[in-house]
């Protein structure tokens, strides 16, 4: 790992000031993705801005019909949160399946969402639940936030502050994990919120995406059988040594079926 300057600001404003002044500065939350990348020298930041000293980024609260999760909230905290378990149990379940226990004790929702790894879990929940991304400067709809592999709408110097999840009537998540790496091969998060059905697929393509044929099928008939009849085209699916595009396309339908069954 190349050496860097280390900063530990205590407010979002101070963090933004450091990040805006230097385009080669990188924020660090739990570091579970950034540190392995730095070890491989895939990234050479001039400075690393540790967000763990910023109290306003931490915590989970229920605000009317929303659950608001601060960017620095760890996966273990979401998994064990009484507020999340009561309002969106499937989100707590998703968090409890990220990485392994030690990773969940460091990794954060803000880090995962702003990194937008194609195989990450959270992006599917953010899109399917139609969450709002709150940043240091604005509010971004889930549909506008995830733009491609490891790419989001965040501008340089802009910091993810919180994610607001509307509380759904129904929500379900299912994923197929690579047996060795445990990363998602294909996952599906299905949700019905205020009567609107959304289906978000993660792991299978370069970026999380909405499966609109499945949304239409579930809007007409909320049942595993309804999505079982929808075939995902293999065109844009990832293809690698772990699985062909055709295999992943097949998994999308299987995972969506399981997610609907889990949602009940």
């Amino acid at each position, binding site marked *: *790992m*190349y*050496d*860097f*300057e*280390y900063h*530990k600001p205590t407010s979002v404003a101070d963090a933004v000031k450091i990040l805006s002044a230097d385009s080669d500065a990188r924020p*660090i939350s739990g*570091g*579970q993705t950034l*540190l*392995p990348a*730095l*070890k491989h020298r895939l990234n050479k930041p001039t400075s*690393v801005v*540790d967000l*763990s000293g910023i109290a306003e980024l931490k915590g989970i609260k229920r605000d009317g019909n929303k659950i608001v999760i601060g960017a620095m909230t760890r996966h*273990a905290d979401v998994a064990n949160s009484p507020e999340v378990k009561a309002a969106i149990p499937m989100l707590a379940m998703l968090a409890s399946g990220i*990485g*392994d*226990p*030690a*990773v969940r*004790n*460091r990794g954060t929702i803000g880090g995962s969402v702003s990194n937008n790894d194609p195989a990450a879990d959270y992006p599917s929940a953010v899109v399917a639940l139609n969450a709002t991304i709150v940043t240091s400067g604005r509010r971004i709809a889930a549909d506008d936030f995830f733009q491609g592999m490891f790419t989001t709408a965040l501008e340089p110097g802009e910091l993810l502050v919180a994610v607001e999840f509307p509380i759904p009537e129904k929500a379900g998540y299912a994923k197929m994990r690579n047996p060795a*790496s*445990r990363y998602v091969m294909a996952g599906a998060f299905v949700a019905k919120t205020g009567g609107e059905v959304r289906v978000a697929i993660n792991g299978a393509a370069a970026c999380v995406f909405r499966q609109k044929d499945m949304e239409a099928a579930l809007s007409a008939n909320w049942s595993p059988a309804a999505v079982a009849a929808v075939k995902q085209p293999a065109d844009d699916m990832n293809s690698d040594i772990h699985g062909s595009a055709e295999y992943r396309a097949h998994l999308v339908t299987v995972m969506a079926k399981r997610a609907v069954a889990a949602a009940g």
Partner: protein
Amino acid sequence: MPQVTLTVNGKTHTVEVEARTLLVELLREKLRLTGTHVGCDTSQCGACVVQMNGDSVKSCTTLALQAEGASVTTIEGLAKPDGTLHPMQEAFREYHALQCGFCTPGMVMSAIDLVEKHPQGLSEHEIREGLEGNLCRCTGYHNIVKAIGAAQEVMHGRSATLAPAHAAE
């Protein structure tokens, strides 16, 4: 050079480190606590697991500076000063839960965190799932799972001896 102040196994240290110094490098190279191992160095194998403020973390994927003000427990901090082993260590010995021993410090640290966070008790399946972030390449986990099952009964005061917790398969 930046400084970090942290408590390791009850003793407070202030150490000069580079910003890029990992927690495991601080423990092994600066404090000479070499019980914490580096296996994969990619946060997969769990040989480097220590407890930080009561949570198991991978010390190869944590900067030393991120441990500022933290209380860290390593494998060296488990036994009592008179040498009496922690029930989890004793259970690993009793059930022969190791072969080469390389993964053992991380296994023990993860296992203690797992048991402490599940006072209601863990099934054999839950123990296996809880060890997801720790790889052993010799014993195939079987005796490790048995040891943790027995240790949880002692740690939660339900048994005075390291009796098998789950029926043989």
